[in-house]
Structures are given as C-alpha cells and as structure tokens.
C-alpha cells in the first residue's frame, strides 16, 4: 500500500515537472550511449558492430536524420518508448558507423497524411515519410516539394532495384522518382467472394461457377431459407461490396479503356456496367439483398448477420470466416469462391495495389540527402529489412524451421522492444518466404476455420488477379478524384435502391451528378494521356 502510494506520488511529481519544465527538455536525445546498453541482448552480431563503432568508425561527423514512424499507442516497458527502444537503438548501432543517426518522429497511424501535410506546410516534416496515398505523392511532387531520387537510385540495394522494376517505374511521376515503393514480394486478389457451401449442398445444387448459376443459387436460398439474406450488402461508402459483381459484366480486352477506367473507382463504369447495376437493383426489389441495406452505413447490421450465419453470399467481407467461432450450426461452412468470371470469361479480378505504400523525401531534407539515402539504401537490403521487420532476428524473433517467428508481445515489451517493428520496415512490405506461411498464419488468427477452407482461401486469394492499368503521372483532374470516388460509391448504392420501374430514371439522374463533378473531365484527360504516351 505504502509502495503504491509512493509510486503515485512519484508519478504526480513527474507530471508536475512535465507541466513546469518541459520546454527546457524538448530536444533531449540519446546518441551513441545507446550502444552500450544493448550489447548484452543483441548477442555476437552486435559486438562486432560495436567494435566497428569504436575502432573503424568514429566517422568524422554524425548526421541526424528524422524518420516518420507510425504511433499506434503501443505499450513499452519503463525507459523505452516508440522513439527509443531496442529496435531504434539497434538501427542506430548499424547506422552510426556510416555517419548517420536516425531519430524517429511519431505520427499517429490514423490521420497520418493530414498530420504530415501540416508538417510539410510548416517545414517541420520528417526526412523520410510514408503514405498509402499515391495521389499525395503526385500532388506534392508537382508542387515541387519532393526530392527527385533519380540520381540516388544506384546507391540502393541492386536486388531491390532489379526485383521491383515495375513498382519503381510506378513511383515515377512525369519521369521523376518522387517516391520509392514499399513492395509486396507477393500480392493477391483485391476482392474476394464468400458463399455458404452447406446451404447449397442441402438444396442439392452444385457450387456456382458462373454468374447465372450464382443468381440461381441466390434465388433458391431466398425460397428455401426465409430467415437468411441471400446476398449481404450494406450502405457503407466503399467500393468493395459491388465491384466484383459489376466487373463480371465488363471486358478488359481494350487496353485504352483499361487505362481510362481502371485507376480509382471508375472501373465499374466501364461499358456494360449498367446491366450489372440493373441486376443489383433487381436483387434489392426481390429481397435477395435486404431492402434496408442503404441505412446500414457502418456495416453493423451486415457484420451481425454474418456473425449469426444469416448471410448466404457476400463480397469483400471476411466476417463469414470469423463466424466459424460464433455460429452455432455445426454444418456451417462459408468458403471463398470464384463464381463471377468477367465478360472475357476469366476469373481474374484486380489485385490489391501492387505496392503497399510510398516512401518519399521532402525538399527540406535536401541538405542531408546523403545521410537520408544511406538509410534508405540500408533499408532496401533484404537482410536488414528482415531484421527490422522481425525486431532483430535472434532478439525479438527466433528462427523456427528456417523462418523467423516473432516472440510473444509481452516478451517483446519486457525486453524493451517494439512489437510494431514492421512499421519501420519501409521498403519491403513482406518477403517471399512468408508466402508459404500464409495458411499457418491465417489459422493462427482464426483457429475455428477448418484447415481445408483456409487452404482453399489462401490458394484463391493469391491467384487469378491482374494489376490495374494506372497512369504514372500527375494529372490536372486528379484533384477531383477523392470526391468522385465517394460519389461513385454513392451512385451505385442509390441506383440499386431505385423503385420498381424507375431504374432508368434514377440511373440517368445519378449519372448526371457524376458528370457534373468532373467524371467526364477525368476520363477525357486519362484518354488524352493514353493517346499521347502509350500509342
């Protein structure tokens, strides 16, 4: 009790100190001293590194660089923090012999882009920044705020460059390397569809392999299982739920069309999409999709229905897999299917973006660009990246069957290590060997999913996909795209809700709204770009 009290007092005192004297201690940071404290944990490898520091190195000058790191409110043991933990200390042990000291700048994961935007405007942004938003890189680049990394590319790891040529080309804007790609060694479908195999079998039907068969199955479900909604849908403003279905009405045969329509959410507006919308509208009218879908704006109802096993078929919502642990029906069997071939007869769907994210360097970092590039080069090396992702192999993770496995969260906290180490692994999103572990990892997260269901799911998810044709340049009309994206989702959701016999009327009215918001301008500019650059 007494101890408890004194601890509270200490905390209280600390708070007072913070309140009174923090402006004086804003810029305290640890530099070389960190090395001494870590050597015990890091083992032999580190000893050599340390020897380097003392003997070979002592580089004439250590340059400080600032690197953004996501702040997820993680837990750290006393004396450690997001910006000063075993991983950051290890990274600096590696970098200091090269004359670089890395400071980490926390940016909250949610709203990171807005925060960075402010920092850029104020000139206080970190030297290395990551984003998931391609548009931002294009805009910043065209505003002259980013360093063109072209002259520094040859300093990056040769394997990183040769293995990711496409991705690197894709991070060039108007010929300038404004970003480096954080790449997937493997990637898969961006959309997936799930269906209740048990219900289909009970109805004596076969698993649908075409859209026509799927429609037949959905109507049969409606008839035989009145308390089940054949197709799950919600009013959330996102393209996931319908894209797969609408794409089954359109073709990829025309490359020019692909470049015009595939960027952003416009894919579903390709010629032929209207028929698909009409079918979705019919689904709503016939109760295949719940007539109340539009008011379920945050998926609450849909997710509850999935968790209760009340949905027959759903696109881009893995809730049916989690439901293995909540549905009481022992026969419950939700599986991933390929049932919607496109107009060319292929099951291929757009992949998840080929890149995980973009890493860019703002102009404010120009005076220390050599140090910045040194760190990027270090990160582009596969072994270094693996050590960063797995919280230093031998420290935060152990080798099991030739693959590193992270230690338990609590263990990592106790040793002063971050458990979000992958956030610092900027240039490689994942590694080829991990692909073999997908089923195992999936099962670890969802132990109630049957082995064969998980295997099929992974097999389907990582096959039959194509990368969308995206335009590697910043276009004038890009500024309209964020708004247009939500408007397109709303367009689909509204047209689907058209009353009996009013489909064409609603369709024309809502399409007009898209046009008024520069849809045609966007498509025209892309067409012009294609004609100018790809012919």
């Amino acid at each position: 009790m007494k101890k408890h009290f004194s601890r509270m007092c200490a905390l209280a005192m600390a708070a007072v100190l913070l309140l009174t004297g923090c402006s004086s201690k804003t810029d305290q940071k640890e530099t070389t001293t960190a090395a001494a404290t870590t050597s015990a944990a890091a083992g032999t490898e580190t000893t050599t590194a340390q020897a380097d520091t003392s003997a070979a190195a002592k580089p004439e000058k250590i340059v400080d660089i600032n690197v953004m790191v996501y702040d997820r409110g993680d837990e750290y043991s006393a004396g450690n923090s997001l910006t000063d933990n075993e991983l950051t200390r290890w990274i600096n042990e590696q970098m200091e012999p090269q004359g670089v000291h890395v400071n980490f700048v926390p940016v909250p994961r949610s709203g990171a882009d807005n925060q960075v935007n402010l920092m850029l405007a104020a000139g206080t942004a970190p030297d290395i920044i990551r984003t998931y938003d391609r548009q931002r890189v294009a805009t910043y680049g065209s505003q002259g705020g980013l360093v063109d990394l072209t002259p520094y590319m040859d300093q990056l790891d040769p394997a990183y460059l040769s293995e990711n040529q496409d991705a690197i080309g894709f991070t060039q804007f108007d010929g300038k390397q404004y970003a480096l790609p954080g790449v997937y060694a493997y990637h898969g479908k961006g959309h997936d569809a799930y269906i209740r195999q048990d219900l289909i079998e009970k109805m004596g039907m076969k698993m649908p392999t075409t859209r026509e068969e799927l429609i037949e199955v959905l109507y049969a479900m409606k008839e035989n299982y009145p308390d089940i909604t054949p197709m799950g849908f919600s009013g959330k403003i996102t393209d996931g739920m319908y894209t797969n279905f609408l794409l089954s009405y359109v073709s990829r045969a025309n490359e020019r069309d692909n470049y015009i329509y595939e960027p952003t959410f416009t894919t579903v507006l390709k010629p032929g999409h209207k028929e698909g919308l009409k079918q979705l509208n019919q689904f709503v009218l016939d109760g295949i999709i719940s007539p109340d879908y539009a008011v379920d704006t945050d998926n609450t109802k849909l997710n509850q229905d999935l968790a209760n096993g009340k949905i027959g078929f759903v696109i881009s919502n893995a809730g049916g897999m989690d439901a293995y642990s909540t549905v009481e029906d022992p026969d419950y069997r939700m599986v991933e299917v390929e049932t919607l071939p496109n107009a060319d007869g292929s099951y291929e769907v757009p992949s998840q973006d080929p890149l995980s994210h973009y890493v860019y360097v703002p102009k404010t970092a120009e005076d220390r660009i050599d140090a910045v590039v040194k760190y990027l080069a270090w990160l582009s090396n596969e072994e270094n990246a693996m050590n960063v992702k797995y919280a230093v192999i031998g420290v935060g993770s152990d080798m099991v069957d030739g693959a590193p496995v992270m230690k338990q969260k609590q263990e990592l906290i106790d040793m002063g290590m971050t458990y979000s180490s992958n956030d610092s692994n900027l240039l490689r999103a994942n590694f080829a060997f991990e692909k073999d572990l997908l089923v195992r990892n999936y099962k670890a997260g969802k132990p109630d999913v049957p082995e064969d269901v998980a295997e099929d799911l992974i097999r389907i998810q990582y096959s039959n996909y194509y990368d969308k044709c995206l335009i590697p340049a910043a276009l004038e009309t890009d500024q309209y795209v964020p708004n247009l994206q939500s408007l397109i989702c709303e367009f689909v959701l509204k047209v689907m809700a058209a009353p009996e016999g009013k489909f064409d009327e609603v369709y024309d009215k809502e399409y007009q709204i898209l046009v008024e918001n520069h849809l045609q301008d966007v498509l025209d500019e892309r067409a012009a770009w294609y004609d100018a650059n790809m012919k």
Partner: protein
Amino acid sequence: MKRRASLYLMLVLPMLYFIVFAYLPMGGIVVAFKDYNIFGGIWDSPWVGLKHFKEAFAAKEFQTAIKNTIILNLGELFINFPFPIVLAIFLNEMTHERMKKTTQTILYLPHFLSMVVVAGIVYQVFGSSGIVNNVLGAFDIGPVNFVGDPKKWRAIYWGTGIWMGAGYGMIVYLAAMAGINVELYDAAYIDGAGRWKRIWHVTLPQIRPTIVTMTIMNVGKILSIGFERPYLMGNVLVQDVSSVISTYVYSVGLQAGRYDFATAIGLFQSVVALIMVLAANWTARKLGEEGIM
C-alpha cells in the same frame, strides 16, 4: 480614475491572447484568394481572385448544402434551443432534491458520447428492426423507415441533438438560476404568486440576459454546422437533406488537401455569421437588452 486603470489592466492579458492567437493567424485567410502551394508558403502562392468562391457557388451541391445547413440549423434554433431552458426551469421547480440531482447528472451524460456511437445508437433504435419499429409493430403500424426517409430523418437529426445536448445546455441556465436572489421569490410568494406566476415573473426575467446572450450567439451559427453529426447520421437515401456545408467542404476540399478551397468557404461562412450576429445584437439592443458586443 485608478479604478478605471485597473479595469484596463485586467484586460491586457486577455486581449493580448485574442490578438496573438486569434487575429495573428487570420492573415492566413488570404489563401482563400490564392492557389495555395503548401511548399511555397502562403505569401508566395499565386493570387487567383475569386476562383474558389466561383467554383463553389457554381456547384449545385454547394447550393443544396447551404439550403440544408440553414434548414437544419433553423430547426436547432427553434426546437432544440428552448429545450434546455424548459428543462432547467422545470428541474429548478422540483423539490425532490435527490431526484433533481440524479436527473441532472444523467441527462448530462450523452454529451460525452462520441458522434460515432450516437449515430450507431440512432440506427439501432430507429432502424427497421429497431426498438421503435418493434413497438409500432405491436400496434400493427409500420415498419416506418425513420432513417431512410428524408423528412423523418430531419426529425431524427433534431431529436438526436436534443438527446445529446439538452442536459449539457441546461447547466448554463441552472447556473443562472442559482444566481437569482432568494428574496425575489419570497416577495413573490408573499404577494400570492403561484408557481407559474413565479416562473413567469421571477425566474424568466432573471435568466433573460443569459437567454438573450445564448440566442445571439446561436443566430450567428446559422451557416456553421458540425461535420460529424450530419455525416455520420446520413446515408445515401437522405443525402438530399443531409449534405451540408461541412460535408461538402470535406468531400471537395479537405479530402483532396485543398486548404485554399476550404478556407474560401470558411470565409464565406464567417462573413454571413458576422452579419447575422450583428443583426441579432442590434435587434436585442433595440429591445433594451445588453447584447454581446
């Protein structure tokens, strides 16, 4: 004279605060007339005159947004604004101390819920399979589509505002009533005034300055509307009534990082607000009230 001097002395720090933290950054409003490049800085960005204003006013969505903002805010002003006052008066008249305190405390709680949560509650309660429709169903009515029908949606919007804000808004009036001189009530009682007369002749006149102040401040907010409530409570079926200025600015401006555009619309809102407040203040003073300026 020394007395006066010390009054101005008291004002020094507060006025300094307003000048530094409110007026100094206002220079940034010029981006409303510029093509703002965040790397070039505010001053070096090129002037574009009224481009952003023209873009906004040419858009049909913006006109709808203005109309919706005004309708929703007028509802707030006439329906939601009097609610806390009535509530405070009735609670003030209540003699059951424990009940009075408990009610106050509990009614004040919804203020602390985030809009995400409240919107979730609204959809659960008023959805087609929600509690309200279940009750109506028992009387063979419905199901009524409260959240998907534009007209009913407005009522739900205002109702939510009352539920979230009335208890919190009440505190100000309770504080005002706590300042009423007890002797006034005693005198009224001796004159034989009943409860309603006491409310009418003592309580209301005594809290009138507070009511007037709050009214003027609210009139100025006719074009300003929070982003979260209409955004999170809306859905595609009610967009024609739920899209407001803040949601428009979000989707067209902020989402695309267009500070200049957002600032332009903010400036338009400010100008309208100031005109409204000046008018309300002028009216109040004509009616013999203090006003806020």
